Each structure stands twice: as C-alpha cells, then as structure tokens.
C-alpha cells in the first residue's frame, strides 16, 4: 500500500478512535459515515441496503451498510431535496416518483447533498418488504454503478404469511449469504452471525422500551425526538454501539419520567403520527403542535424497526429473520395495519391522529383513508390528513397546513373540555 494511503488510514483511525469515546448521535453518525467513506482504504466493502432489509448478515461479514433512504431523509431535513429532485427530473424521472429515490439518484451523479454523496457501493441489497419502488431504484443504481444486486423478495402478507412464502424467503436467506460470500470472497462466520443477531434483538428491545416511555404523562420525548434517535436502529442494528446508545437514552427517558419532565412543556393533548416524517418541516411541525400544548407521543413509523420482535427467535435469529422481515408494518394488509394503529391509540392514550398523506410513498399512503375510517369508528377519535411529501417541499403549503392544524386542534380541545 502506498505510503500516503497508510498515512491517511492511520489518521482516519485515530480520528475515529477519538470520536468513538463520545456517545452522541451526531458523533456516532459522523464516525459511521467517515468509516463508510474510507472503506476502500481499510479494505472493507460497502453495501447499499434498503431501510427494511436484513442488515445483520452485512454486519457479521464486516461489510459497511449504507442506507440511501437515510440519505434521502438527510437531504430532506437539510432542505436540499427540491434541487436534487429537479436534477432527477431533468434526467427524465417523473416528479410523481418517490422523492427519496429521485434525490438519491440525482445525488449519485453529482455527489451533492449534505454529505457530498454516499460512498460508492460494492454491492446493492434490496429487500422489497417496504415497497416496489426500492426494486426500481436499486435497478437504476445497479446499472449506474455496475455492481452486483441482491434482491430479497418478501411476498406481501395481505392476510397472513403463507407457508410457501416462508419457504421462499428462508431459501433466499441462504442465497443472500452465498451472494455476500462471493462478493466479499470470504466465508460467513456463523458464530459471529449469532452474536450480531443477539445484539440486533437487544437493540430492538431497547428501542421499543425507549418508545414505550412515551406512554407516560407527560411523554418524556415526542415522535419528533424519535425521528432523530431512530437513525441508529435503522443503520447500525446488530452492533454494540446501538445497544449502548439506547440503554443510555432509556435511562435518560426514565429519569425524565420520574421527574415529570415532558417533551412539550405543558402537555395537554396527545397525538399519534402516521407515515414518514415531512423531513424539511419536522421542526416547524413540532413547534406548531407544541404551541397548542399538543405532543405527538407516538408514531407508526419509528416503531417499524422493532415491530416484528414477536417473530424473532433469540436462539435462532437467522432462520427467524424470514418471518420477521416479511411481516413488517408496510408488508401487511390495511386491516392488520388498522389493528396496530388502534393498539397504539390505546397504549399511548392519544386524543387524535395526524396522518401524513405522503405523495412519495404509495404503500404507506394508499389505504390511509380506510385506516382513518376504521380507527375513527373503533375509537371515536378525530384525525387530520396532511397532504405533503417527505422530501420534496414543493408539495408542502405551510399556510394551508397551519390552518388545518389549527382547526383540528380546535376540535381536539372542544372534545377534551
């Protein structure tokens, strides 16, 4: 290895060591992206993977997972979405397509965005348990980067998980390992895989426990906080840093509960959020609701990364991944989704639901009107539908949304008085 590379490697390692001592989200994510960006120098492989995909085998193979969807969220939060979406549109992509996909596809060609583009992938891992869009998106990137693509096909569970689907997904897990072994030119260490599985489950348990703390009044954190803390369970599930981080966060939240500190200073109304956040407007929305003494105490989105623990076998994590990854929230029928929402209404004792009708996400948004009707019927609570987009601010009308939130909060207040 040339002298200059060795020097660089040492420098990066030193910086990473220094940063690893601190356990704040920003630092962890900075270290993570630095490692990913310097992966080639350290001889490690980088895999791009969908947010709902099984990351554990990658961790066990020492591959660095990178999440274009997380990148999309960062682009949205840093308000760089419109420019990148426009770039994608000039490349021929319709403005009606998913804005995560549009901004990521554009970003790959211009290396723009908040972190100067994602590190180049050595492989792509696409699990279609969240949508059919990721299949198209990863096909685009597989052609662009000319790297191998693995598709984990998780049949949709309209009313249950069929036996033949179970066999199919289980078989593909073996194919997944074969794919990784081939690309990485090394064997999977199955003991390591078991360890990673344990850590993943532990991370999920802690994340669920953190989310559970908001059942308290006042809620020690809000869904907007959850959107922030979510990054780790998505990206680094299966590593010790996640377990450590959420253990600390849980302790902090429990302490706030004991002390009666709420996320919203004067919490009077409790709401449930549905769908992916409107990333460029989370702060504005958070403040808007807080001004009404309303706290969004829970959401259907952040719990998706710990929603299938009941299917995970602690002692046989690998086999049970087939079911756990197939039966996630977005891969089930609208009726089962409604039951989960009703369960959350009860668990978190909410007074109303705020639904984001997200132009970018059809599996999440189509069917929302029916979920809304079912929940309203079963629990008699009002709901608000906000038409927007998770990244593309051109689909967001601040004055219109503000008026609708004000009117909705009036209804909530009248019902509570």
């Amino acid at each position, binding site marked *: 290895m040339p002298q200059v590379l060795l020097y660089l490697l040492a420098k990066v390692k030193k910086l990473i060591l220094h940063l690893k001592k601190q356990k704040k989200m920003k630092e962890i994510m900075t270290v993570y992206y630095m490692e990913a960006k310097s992966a080639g120098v350290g001889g490690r492989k980088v895999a791009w993977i969908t947010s709902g995909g099984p990351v554990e085998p990658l961790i066990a193979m020492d591959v660095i997972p990178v999440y274009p969807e997380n990148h999309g969220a960062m682009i949205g939060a840093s308000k760089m979405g419109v420019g990148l979406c426009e770039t994608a549109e000039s490349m021929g992509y319709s403005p009606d397509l998913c804005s995560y996909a549009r901004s990521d596809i554009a970003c790959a060609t211009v290396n723009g965005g908040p972190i100067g583009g994602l590190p180049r992938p050595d492989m792509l891992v696409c699990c279609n348990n969240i949508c059919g869009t990721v299949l198209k998106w990863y096909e685009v990137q*597989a052609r662009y980067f000319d790297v191998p693509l693995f598709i984990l096909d998780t049949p949709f569970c309209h009313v249950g998980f069929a036996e033949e689907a179970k066999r*199919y997904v289980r078989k593909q897990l073996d*194919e997944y390992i074969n794919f990784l072994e081939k690309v990485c030119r090394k064997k999977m260490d199955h003991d390591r895989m078991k360890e990673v599985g344990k850590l993943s489950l532990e991370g999920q348990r802690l994340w669920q426990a953190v989310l559970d703390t908001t059942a308290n009044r006042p809620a020690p954190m809000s869904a907007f906080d959850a959107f922030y803390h979510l990054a780790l369970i998505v990206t680094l599930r299966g590593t010790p840093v996640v377990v450590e981080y959420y253990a600390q966060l849980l302790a902090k939240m429990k302490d706030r509960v004991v002390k009666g500190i709420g996320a919203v200073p004067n919490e009077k109304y409790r709401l449930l959020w549905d769908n992916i956040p409107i990333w460029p407007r989370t702060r504005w929305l958070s403040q808007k609701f807080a001004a009404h003494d309303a706290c969004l105490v829970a959401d259907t989105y952040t719990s998706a990364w710990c929603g299938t623990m009941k299917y995970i076998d602690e002692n046989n994590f690998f086999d049970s991944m087939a079911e756990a990854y197939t039966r996630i929230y977005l891969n089930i029928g609208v009726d089962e989704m409604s039951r989960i929402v009703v369960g959350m209404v009860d668990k978190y004792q909410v007074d109303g639901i705020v639904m984001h009708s997200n132009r970018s996400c059809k599996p999440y948004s189509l069917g929302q009107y029916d979920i809304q009707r079912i929940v309203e019927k079963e629990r008699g609570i009002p709901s608000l539908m906000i038409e927007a987009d998770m990244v593309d601010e051109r689909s967001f009308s601040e004055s219109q949304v503000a008026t609708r939130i004000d009117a909705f909060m009036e209804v909530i207040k009248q019902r509570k008085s």
Partner: protein
Amino acid sequence: MTEFHDALKDPAAYGKRLKEESGRKVVGYFCSYTPEEMIYAAGAHPFRLFGTGDGIHLADAHFQSYCCSLVRGALEGALAGRFDFLDGVVFPHTCDSIQRLSDVWRVNMHGHFHLDVVLPVKLNTESAKTYMTDVLEKFRSDLEIKLGASISEDDLKKAVRTFNDIRGSLKRLYELKSENPGVVSGADLYAVVKASMIMDRDRVVRVLPGVIRELEKRRGTGEGEEGKRLVLAGGICNHPDVYRVIEEAGGVVVWDDLCTGSRYFEGLMEGSGSAIADLAGHYLARPVCPAKHSGLYSRAERLVEIVKEKRAAGVVFFFLKFCDPHAFDYPYLKKALDEAGIPSMVLEVEDRLPSEVQLMTRFETFVHMI
C-alpha cells in the same frame, strides 16, 4: 369485428349476459399476471377488469389523487355496483398500487370471494421458480374451494391449449398488421386483443382464426401509402382513440410493448409434461412488467429488438400518470433507444386523453421529425 367492439362497449353487460346464458361463474381479475388459465380450467369465466374513463367520485373516499386512474377507476366501478355480478375477484401481486387496491377492496367490498395471488417479484432464480409453482398450486386449491369445483390435470391441459391458441392467434394478427399495416386499423386490432380478455374464451378461440383468414385475404388490397411505423410502449392502454389519432397524424402502430398487447400474448406455454410447470414457465419467462425483475437490461433489450425487428421508425411511450414502475424505467429505456438511434416521444395520460387537437399536434410533430 363488431362482436369484439360490442363486448368492449359495455364489458359488465357482456359479463352479466354470459353468466346468465352459460350458467358459469364469472371471476374478475386484474393485470396480465393473473393466471387466468386456472380460472378457465375450473369451469369459470375469467373476466379482466380495467379502469373506468368515467368520472371518479366514490373512489376518492379511499384513494388519494396521486393514485393511478386504473386503480381508482377499478374501485369506482366496484363501489358503483358495476361488478356486482362477479362471483369473485383475483388480485395478482404486481405494483404497490394494485397491492393496496386488493386491501381496500377486501375491506369494503363484500358479496364475492377475494383471492390474492402473491407472485414472486423476481423471476430469474431457481427459488423464485419453485415459489411460482407453489403459488400456482395454492391458487388452484383456493379456486377449487371458492368455486366448489375441482381442477384436474386434463382441465389444466385443455386450458393451456386454449390460451396458447388464443395468444398464438393474437400474435398472428399483430404480425399481419405489422407486415401489412393497411389490413386492419389500430383501433380494431386493439378491440380484438382487449375483448379477448373479457369474452368467452371458447368463443374467442373459435372466432380468431376467422379474423386471421379475413385479414390474410385483405393483404395486398386497398393499400394506400403507409404511415410512419411506430411502436407503442407502456402499461395498460385504455384509449382506442390513440390509434386513430396516430394514424391521422401519419403514423401507424406496428407493434407494442403493452400489458394489453404483446406482453399478454408473447411466450407460449411449452408442453413440459405438467400443466402447472407449463403455466409457471410462461409467467416466469413472458416479457416482464416493470413491477417485476428479470435482469437489469431485459426490458430495454426487448424494446430495441422489437423496433429493429418490426422496422419501426420510432417509439411512442404511453404512460398512465402515477404508474411508478413504468416511470422508473423510462430514462433507461429512452437512453437505450437513443443509443440505438431510435427516436421516441412520451405521452402521459390520467384517466382521460388530452384534447384531440393537442394530441394530434404532438403526434404530427413527432411523425414529421422521424
């Protein structure tokens, strides 16, 4: 020809009449990926459902405006009671919108059975092949239960033969049109293909050879100047007027890559010994819909090949607004055409076509350019 046009004028009325007259059960289905052969083998009538071009109101309570008109229009038809005569409806898994259509339909529509056929999304692996076969077996037993019928190997073999014959005839009609565009108008050919997904298949299989003979007779007669040869590519085409306007603008559609066209009839079922294996083979190998995966370049390669083989001068992409799978493939398909020196234009429609004047201008401009 009138028989096909008549069936399309009011498909629901046709379905109702067929049900009364034949006493057979009628099973509605979406998309060219539904193994309709199985419905036929069970002694029932497979009846393909399309979106409505009429105003969509009732479905607005269930689907947002950014859902495609095929899905919204289909639900509209159901909510308006137009499909009440159906004994069951089958939803194959294809795109995210059809997926949720099945859910919303199940939650809101009652009175007929509801089956999902959750096909594999990737089609080019051994495990997908095994799963495809499993899904077909499951569909067979589900249908047997829902229809109170049994589907024997012989029933299936007969279905394979019937549908092979229908698809073979449709392909022959396309070839005749391609060789001799004057023999049949685009709108007539469209009507034949589409009606073949609605009409009694025993009737269709008997009538099509006559249509072929008729077109063969017309060859060499009444040929005027030939329009610019075009290929129509996209998803579903619900607009026969497109063909007429293209012809009036000086073009002629000589082949297509549509799910209401060549993607439906290409890929005959091979006699492998087992009818289920034949069916599985067909649905794995037929020209792929962009909602499914069968290699990274297969769709572009096929499109370029069609254009070359049919000596077409250009491609008209015909997209349904909000159809994600097609919209995602467009830039790469266009690039492949550009690289092969094939001009193309894109037309995106919602539930209705743009005004005729507008349409004509766009087609004329394109035809003059190529």
